[in-house]
């Protein structure tokens, strides 16, 4: 591992260094928040498309005609999908900007109200398509909390294994796209190559490379196949030397550092005020990781470090993700040692379908099977919010149940969507070329932004 000045790998620090410098007095004072945070930083362009169209006919204001409005995207290679940016440029400097999203919107939350709880994971898994297991996991955890269902230990550990492998593959994808965006085109090929190895493991376990529908309410869809240990072990052998190569290719390389250090800087206060989570928040020096701070699954039982940055720039966000791959591998090693035996899904016949063999011999099993797949299982009335730490931050699922077999309301809190708010903030007063570095460092997945 390359040791650098900005090496953000820090040991676990149990006392978050969050300054408590605001809102200490006068609870009735309404404007005690960061009321002018964004305008102060020229980070807000409050203009709708309609206003933009009106402006096209507006007479030229010679006095202030120094800036130019420019569209970047929606289909720009560096926008990772269909993100459009409205940029107000002063020469090559970005004065203000506004992300315009929605091009991939397919109403998945509305669709979620039409699908049963069993079908739900097929829907949500398509949101953050680079980290599908986390979508399924958040959804399943929420449903299980509503039912009050305990899942077997092995199912929990399988979920953790798949989550961490998925974090590795997602961060490898980031390495590839980040390299590509910044001109290290060979990095794109390396990143995709390593990710493909991980996807091969997913295919072995779930049958699919993406959109697995593997983690379901009640456990997982199938037990780990024979030979899964070898497959994981092979990955854990391959990856460390490859990550060393990344260090040589990028981390210590002067061009790479010049390109990223000091670009897209954001402080801890701004990051918190803007509701960012994940590597974007941690790069600003806030040690917040749901796996450690609000543990779910069995993260209490494994050891890992929360990687935290110091400068809050694009380089920190790159280095955090690179080192999180290493931390995830550390967790996977422990999972290999501790994987318990037992059932891979709950045996509650009302929620999970019976084993195939039981259907031949038991009338009840056949009935349960039929009921689950035709009308689904009913979930008690109530509302619940479950959150997991996805590679991009807090992925939350809010479900309201009316007691029926379909969610009354299913809302996903997508970290990419909220992290995207930081773009105007980080791009302001930077160069247009750095705007690409900033978008890339936030690592938005547009499927999750637009849902």
């Amino acid at each position, binding site marked *: 591992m390359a040791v650098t000045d900005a090496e953000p790998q820090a040991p676990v620090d149990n006392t978050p260094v*969050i300054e408590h410098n605001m809102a200490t007095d006068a609870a009735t004072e*309404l404007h005690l928040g960061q009321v002018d945070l964004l305008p102060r930083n020229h980070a*807000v362009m409050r203009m709708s498309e309609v206003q933009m169209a009106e402006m096209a006919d507006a007479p030229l204001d010679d006095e202030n005609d120094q800036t130019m409005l420019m569209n970047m995207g929606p289909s720009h290679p560096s926008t990772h999908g269909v993100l459009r940016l409205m940029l107000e440029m002063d020469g090559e400097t970005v004065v203000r900007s506004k992300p315009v999203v929605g091009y991939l919107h397919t109403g998945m*939350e509305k669709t979620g109200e039409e699908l049963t709880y069993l079908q739900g994971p097929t829907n949500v898994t398509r949101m953050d398509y680079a980290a599908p297991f986390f979508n399924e996991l958040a959804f399943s955890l929420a449903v299980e909390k509503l039912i009050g269902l305990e899942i077997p230990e092995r199912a929990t550990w399988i979920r953790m294994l798949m989550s961490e492998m998925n974090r590795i593959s997602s961060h490898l994808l980031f390495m590839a796209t980040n390299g590509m965006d910044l001109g290290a085109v060979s990095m794109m090929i390396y990143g995709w190559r390593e990710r493909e190895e991980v996807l091969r493991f997913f295919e072995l376990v779930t049958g699919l490379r993406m959109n697995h529908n593997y983690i379901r309410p009640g456990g997982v869809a199938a037990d780990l196949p024979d030979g899964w240990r070898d497959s994981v072990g092979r990955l854990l052998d391959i990856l460390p030397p490859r990550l060393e190569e990344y260090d040589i290719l990028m981390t210590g390389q002067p061009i790479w550092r010049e390109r990223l250090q000091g670009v897209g800087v954001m402080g801890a206060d701004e990051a*918190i005020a803007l*509701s960012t989570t994940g590597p974007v928040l941690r790069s600003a020096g806030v040690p917040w990781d749901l796996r450690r701070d609000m543990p779910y699954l069995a993260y209490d039982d494994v050891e890992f470090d929360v990687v935290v940055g110091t400068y809050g720039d694009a380089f920190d966000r790159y280095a955090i993700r690179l080192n999180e791959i290493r931390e995830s591998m550390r967790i996977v090693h422990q999972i290999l040692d501790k994987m318990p035996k037992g059932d891979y899904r709950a045996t509650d016949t009302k929620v999970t379908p019976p084993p195939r063999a039981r259907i031949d011999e038991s009338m009840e099993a056949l009935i349960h099977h039929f009921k689950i797949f035709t009308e689904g299982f009913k979930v008690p009335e109530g509302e619940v919010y479950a959150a997991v730490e996805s590679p991009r931050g807090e992925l939350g699922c809010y479900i309201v149940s009316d007691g029926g077999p379909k969610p009354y309301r299913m809302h996903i809190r997508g970290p990419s969507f909220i992290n995207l*708010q930081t773009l105007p903030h980080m791009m302001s007063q930077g160069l247009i070329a750095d705007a690409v570095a900033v978008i890339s460092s936030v690592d938005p997945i547009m499927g999750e932004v637009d*849902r």
Partner: protein
Amino acid sequence: MTDEATPDPEGADAASGDEVIAAESTGPMAFGCPLVASADGQLVIHPGRDEWLLVASAILADGFRMCIDVTAVDFLTFQGRRELPAGINAERYELVASFINHERRERIRARVQISADDATIGSLTNLYPGADYLEREVFDMFGINFEGHPDLSRILMPENWEGHPLRKDFATGAIPVQFKGTN
């Protein structure tokens, strides 16, 4: 607020800030609002719509520095069956906002009832700039107006879209699509 995940009337009252005086009520209170514990072990408060910003600023002052989520629910076809604390009248819309206190590692969720006749509520953006996109999404999907939001425009649907898709009376598949070569 207390560290336990169960409602504690005294602890909750004491920390709710001097300015926001809890109204006399039988149940547990926090930030001057009825407090319940949800199925997920989180604390849920039920502020009234008119004092929403006041409550939100008390939440912020209590160290809940991050607004993690803002969403809404349309209870059009599920009226009257919800469990709400005494004194809270069920309305058609419900705004659901979650906050995180990083130091105490706590979450709190607020559920605000908003009537269908006057679907308006104060915007959190002055207190929590991060609520910007989330409130725009709620406006887009439910047609709830946020007073004081600096840029309340559609975010996911096209600008000229009619209706609010996540309302329960917005039917799925209601838009006829004309394909080439069909009549």
